[in-house]
């Protein structure tokens, strides 16, 4: 069974934000009204964390794209009262929108603040001037949603691979952010497959995961020069 994982090379990443836009377009993530957005209800499945370090003028700005980490030992699924979020056999942490009761316990339990909530009806903002990706369902008011590693793509890829009776090739199934990244900083694939790029990247000397000490086993690896 494959285990999908991601590696983000922060030495390549410039923090341009293309992954955020790609994600929103791919997954029909609602654009909230401006005043809601300012209140902190912006919905990004792929978020960008900015941290400052160093002393002036030796300032370092670390920008870090942050999807859901699809933890192997997810703290969010454990607390869900109705099983609306769970980790499947392939390591994807799923969110079942039609079962979610909107208690937001999973959001509270997630140490990485990876989930977002539909505070209002996602009837997009006035005029709704957009087109939707027909591969992804739209959510309804009052449910939690989050990055799915574009699992709708996996469905289609699996279908083709099964039909041709072959395993899924490395790079055949990648989420929108990895596909679009102008710096090629996002690697994605089956981490159990020793030939995959993400397996190689996860073993790189620069690779680490966020807050490994928590023991939640995130499946998103960050690659960053240790001495910078």
């Amino acid at each position, binding site marked *: 069974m494959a285990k999908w994982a991601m590696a983000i090379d922060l*030495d*390549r990443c*410039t*923090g*341009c*934000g*293309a992954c*955020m*836009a*790609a994600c*929103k*377009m*791919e997954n029909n993530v609602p*654009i*909230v009204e*401006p005043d809601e*957005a*300012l209140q902190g209800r*912006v919905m990004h499945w792929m978020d*960008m964390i*900015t941290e*400052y370090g*160093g002393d*002036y*003028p*030796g*300032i*370092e*700005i670390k*920008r870090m794209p942050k999807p859901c980490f699809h933890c192997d030992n997810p703290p969010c699924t454990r607390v869900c009262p109705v099983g609306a979020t769970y980790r499947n056999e392939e390591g994807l942490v799923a969110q079942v929108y039609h079962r979610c009761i909107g208690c937001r316990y999973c959001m509270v339990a997630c140490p990485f603040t990876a989930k977002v909530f539909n505070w209002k*009806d*996602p*009837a*997009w*903002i*006035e*005029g*709704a*001037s*957009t*087109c*939707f*990706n*027909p591969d992804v*369902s*739209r*959510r*309804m*008011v*009052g449910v939690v949603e989050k990055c799915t590693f574009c699992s709708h793509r996996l469905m289609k890829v699996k279908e083709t691979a099964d039909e041709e009776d072959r395993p899924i090739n490395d790079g055949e199934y990648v989420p*929108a952010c990895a*596909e*679009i*990244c*102008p*710096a*090629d*900083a996002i690697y994605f694939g089956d981490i159990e497959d020793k030939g995959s790029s993400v397996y190689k990247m996860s073993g790189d000397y620069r690779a680490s995961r966020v807050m490994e000490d928590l023991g939640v086993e995130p499946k998103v690896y960050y690659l960053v*020069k240790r001495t910078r």
Partner: protein
Amino acid sequence: MEIKRRDFIKLVGGTSVSLAVGGCAMDEVLEIPDRLIHRVRTGPGIETWKNTICGLCPGGCGISVRMVDGLPVSIRGNPHYPVNLGGMCSLGLNALHMLYHPDRLKGPMKRTANPGSGRWEPITWDEALKIIAERLTELRGGQKSRQVAVLGYDERGLMEQHIARFMKAYGSPNYFRFSPSQNDMVPHSLLHGHSRIPAYDFLNAKLIVSFGSNFLGEGYSPVYYTKLYSHHRELQTQYIQVESRMSLTAANADKWVPIRPGTYGALALGIAYVLIREELYDARFVGGSTFGFEDWADRSGSRHLGFRSIVLGNYYPEKVSEITGVPTAAILELGRLLGNTPKSLVLGDGGAVDNTNGTFAQMAVQSLNALLGNYEAEGGVFFTDQAPVRPLPDVEVDAVAAAGSRSEPLTSSRDVPFPLSDFSIESFAKNILADSPYPLSVLFLYHGNPLFQTLNHLDFAGALKKIPLVVSFDSIINETSEYAHLILPEHTFLESWGEISDVPTVGFSHFGIQQPVVEPLHDTRGTGDVFTELARRVGGTVKSAAAFTDYREEVRYAAEGLFRSGQGAVVAKGQKQPWIEFLQRRGWQTGRYATFDEFWEQLLLNGGWWNPARKKKNLDELFTTPSGKFEFFSQRLNSEFNRLLLKLDETGSSRNLESVLSRLNISARGDNAMMPHHEAVPYEGDRPMYLVTFQVMPNRDGAGAALPLMQELFGYSVHSPWESWAEIHPETAAAAGVSNDDWVWVESSIGNVRVKAKITPGIMPDVVAIPFGMGHTSYGRYARGHGVNPNTIMRNLHDLVSGKPALEATKVRISRTS
């Protein structure tokens, strides 16, 4: 009674009645015609991809549009297109929102009340074109063809030719493009002789020092540079960014050198001092291929100081440090690093050139490349070839047209402020207002939004009001087109034909084909076709500008040149991996197509053509200056000054260079004025902070503001959606009693704006930075009324030589709003 079981249960269940259950169907929210909705609803969901070129910024990325049953649903990068290789920026990814924008005009519009009233009535294409054509014919009949002007923005290549041909056949010299990037070539032309913007060999350079050039976020093609940058670790390239504010590029650089705005040239010369003093410069290149390095004597025998003497005499590190705020040690270090690292590269843009002294600063920066012998060197500076497109056939010019074209363009005036500018909106507006040298009767506005993007909106707004017929091609009404009498809405780039080729600074010649991926959603037309139609309607020799049935034919005609040249190849699969090697080796590739039809088919299928092969040029064929060399002393600038001298003489001023220079507000005197030097920016003394503006990826030149997603992502780096902000250094903020997310007034001598403070250490303590792109008063429902436009508080200053807007020449004061 028609009660469905589900409704009934819902009724009985009660609880869910008030809640909207489930998402809405796709067609409920799309702004698309019914015929397309039917397709989506009943179609099998067949997925197709069509390649075209993104038209939202000049970057020219190849995109693949994903269509389900023929309806575009998403965009990704064309993985084979060499500029972006599948990469995209956030703005381009969002292009479909532009296609489906609810405020797009559904057809031509005629204004029925005052500008800004928002009162428009629909008009048919035929009527609209008739009004314009009649007016054009009338003017031409009265020998007044020169009273027609086209104000373009940043169009290049075919579209520029197309409009130029129309104007030539019609008989008017007044075709201008106001994009600030049009002025970028001026300093290059002074040094190199030709006005081509150089490209940089990023992949082979080991050290890249960028003076204010935010190439990852703002340059001509950020995606292209991001691709290049992404290899820096394995290639061990070192990046150093000299900039007042820590831009996206600075944040990714290995080192950020903060510098006072308006002093980039001084730092470059300070580094030149180190290079020269420590003999770290490339003596072979400087000796053989430059002019004006050593002291020299002109034909009359008078002695002139060379670059070496001037630099050594004026730009010693202590002084430069005082001017720039960069520590002496850092200057020495930078100079030594540049001198001692083989394949070190210098480039300048952005803050370095967006100032009154921009031209001289850019000359100073490029001088470093000359000192380092970077021209045509590996990891250096080179000039790309032009894509061998077939030139369009000449137009017929009758006597009226010839006379009209010969007359003085509306942008020049007796006291031309900018000697080397093609166009300055400043003098354009003044001339229109003064009817000097002649009145303007018809103005076409093509792309861009001058009232939002330039520094002197007020003059230009007055000018717009004065013109009897203003025609705009905008598809969403913006600040400028509010003043138009007629709007002939253009297709979005996803519905129209076009090409984007040879994007400046991209290191190979390329030709990207823009083709409609979907039939036009609304009753819009391509502007190329509109000009063709106008040419037909005006008739006579003007008809020769309508040589092609439609714009597609024109693109096809131009592309035939690529096929005939036998060079390069249609972009194709399998380039991704060896791409870097391609660039490094400058390899060669040929296509497999026997006829042009096959070539054309391939071109449409794959989205473009490119030629990675480039013959290395000899240094003596590189420069087209009078001396044929790189000119530290610009003879072109010198002759330009002399020309002005003659001109001033006519008006009876005293006859010396000094009067010209003072007229131009250039403070340098003598030879200095023709050479790279530090020209102090005339800052006002009574305000403590420098105002700096920058563009953000999701917005770029203000165009992204129409898109809701881009508005939301606008401040993604500081978490400021839909809102402008001011970046302030922690020390400054503490002194002003400002904390994060406080509202502050940023106040200049022109006016003030209210923005949210974002405290970031990545900025100089005496600099405040506001992003550009927000603060629209028009431009659709999403743009209007969010954030501020920092241009409104900027002094109306421009580059003394090129006329480029001086975006960093204003000082401000900040205070907390109570």
